[in-house]
């Protein structure tokens, strides 16, 4: 008990106020970061979740135009798929990291994957293509695959999968179509909707 007493500063020093305020602001900041960066949506598998953040739009758009669009979403490549726990742990950790950098406006012009992420992606390439790169009866295709998967990354050869050759925040000029930040659906302009409704009722 006494040990405990000594651990805290003297009552009158006002530490409580400081602590309360700082804890509250830390929580608040966290909440702010989370809100600002849509951290919750980040837990979903929808690629649009990643583009909540404009920093991710160049990679989103290049993925959108890639051979992998119909088969692999962001998380299929960038999040571990070995077990559920690891998957969400990685997501949460990564998400908070991205969100922090984002809120601090510290994003670099050209983003690089961290080594940790590279490993994740490499494993995911192999996860889907395991037969093509390990199976003996496909060595006619490309003999080096079996060893390549151990000593270099897949995208050192397949440089356009899936983000193309250009990297960097300014490489996509107008990220218009897919941006969830711009959700007003147009599809049919108002004047035409009206016209068609009128024409429908006139024909009755």
């Amino acid at each position: 008990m006494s040990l405990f007493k000594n651990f805290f500063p003297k009552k009158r020093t006002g530490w409580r106020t400081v602590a309360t305020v700082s804890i509250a602001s830390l929580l608040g900041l966290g909440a702010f970061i989370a809100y600002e960066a849509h951290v919750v949506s980040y837990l979903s598998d929808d690629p649009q979740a990643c583009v909540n953040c404009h920093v991710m739009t160049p990679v989103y758009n290049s993925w959108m135009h890639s051979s992998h669009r119909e088969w692999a979403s962001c998380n299929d490549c960038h999040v571990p798929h070995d077990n559920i726990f690891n998957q969400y742990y990685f997501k949460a950790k990564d998400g908070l990291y991205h969100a922090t950098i984002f809120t601090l406006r510290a994003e670099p012009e050209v983003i690089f994957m961290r080594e940790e992420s590279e490993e994740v992606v490499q494993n995911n390439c192999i996860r889907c293509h395991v037969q093509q790169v390990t199976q003996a009866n496909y060595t006619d295709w490309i003999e080096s695959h079996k060893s390549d998967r151990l000593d270099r990354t897949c995208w050192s050869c397949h440089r356009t999968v899936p983000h193309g050759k250009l990297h960097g925040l300014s490489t996509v000029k107008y990220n218009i179509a897919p941006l969830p930040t711009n959700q007003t659906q147009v599809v049919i302009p108002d004047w035409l909707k009206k016209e068609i409704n009128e024409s429908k009722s006139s024909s009755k």
Partner: protein
Amino acid sequence: NRKNESKYKYVPQADISENEPRNAVWGEYYPLEYQSYLQTSDTGFVSYQGGSAMRDMLEEDPNLVILWAGYGFSKDYNQGRGHYYAVEDIHNTLRTGGPTGPNDGPMPATCWTCKSPDVPRLMNEIGVAEFYSGKWAGKGDQIVNPIGCADCHDANSMKLKISRPALIEAFDAMGKDITKVTHQEMRSLVCAQCHVEYYFNKNLPGKEGTPYLVFPWKEGMRAEDMEKYYDNIEFSDWTHQLSRAPMLKAQHPGYETYLTGVHADRGVSCVDCHMPYKSVGGTKFTDHHIQSPLNNIQNACQVCHREEAEKLKENVYERQRKVAESRIDLEKMLVKAHIEAKKCWDLGASEQQMDSILMDIRHAQWRWDYAAAAHGATFHSPVEISRVLSSGLVRAQEARVKIARLLAELGYNQPVEMPDISTKEKAQEYIGLDMEKLRKEKELFKENLLPEWLEQAKQRQEKWDEEKVSASAK
């Protein structure tokens, strides 16, 4: 907050009014897209059966003159060129004739629908049915800008939009809601506003007499579905000059046939191949040079297929060649059937005797046209197109067997002599077209009426600019 920031950072605050038809105005804000769009004016690429050059289809294949005898297409038919030429080409085609005033000429105003972003503007100003009313020449002064930005984009958000009522109405007719489609589907649906089979319905309740543009999809999009649709409403585009069959004309069912192919099945959109991403310097953008992907294999195909360009091209040509074989066989059979049917009439056949023969011819040629008119379809969906052609062959042979029996009955039991139709000129002469006259009329139109249209349009557009300047000065 930062989210709003991103909105503004990436969507330039362009000041473009809704339905602005002039592509250059949009181009000020989106120069990369605009400049690539301008390249659709290039006519330098020719492939086995496509490309951007002007190709006279009647000259390449004079059989067509016979198949379309009595209909505008036998006068003049070219392969589509780039969007840049849409207005110029409809001015020039002999199918629109040589009108001398707003109420003259063979074609209705509806013909403009797929040629220009002036169309949504005008529809908005005067109403859809009003737009479709009257002669083609009646709206010539209004429609001058070739296919462009406002046909596919919303001016504020730059999002893809549907600007043509016919597509929306066709979805309605199928019981589908076009506002519920995915982004990826929109990347084909903007094309499906125009690259589809259509007809002009003059009997729509409440709009009787107006040649209203309709896509005949109510029963489905396969050749047999549309055939059933037309049979049910007893519609025909024209009566064949030789066989007197009640004919259907299929116009470019590009979207309908694309849907039956493996690429559509795998979620690949028109835009993925015809408007792939392109890198210029350090920037990526959607290539608005819409053209044959064979002129752009690297961006259009190799994103997905890591094959050599030559091989991919050969894949396309091989499919086109194989299907063309059956298509041409069917064509030749149809030419014979029309001319043999004419012989029957000449020998005094009765309507009743001809009835089922003419229906066979109608159905066979419809299938042929469905397969032939969508220039891309032999690649987009070669198996389906082959199936449709085979079913056409079956109907054409039924007709010819019946004709052989009927001719024998009429006392003529030998092969019918075929005219010399080895060139476009000979074929057009055979069906009695006075090409000289048609060309002359067109010349006069281009000397007299056309310059007036363009002058009126110029003045209108200059006025917009003045209004805008004075509005912003306020």
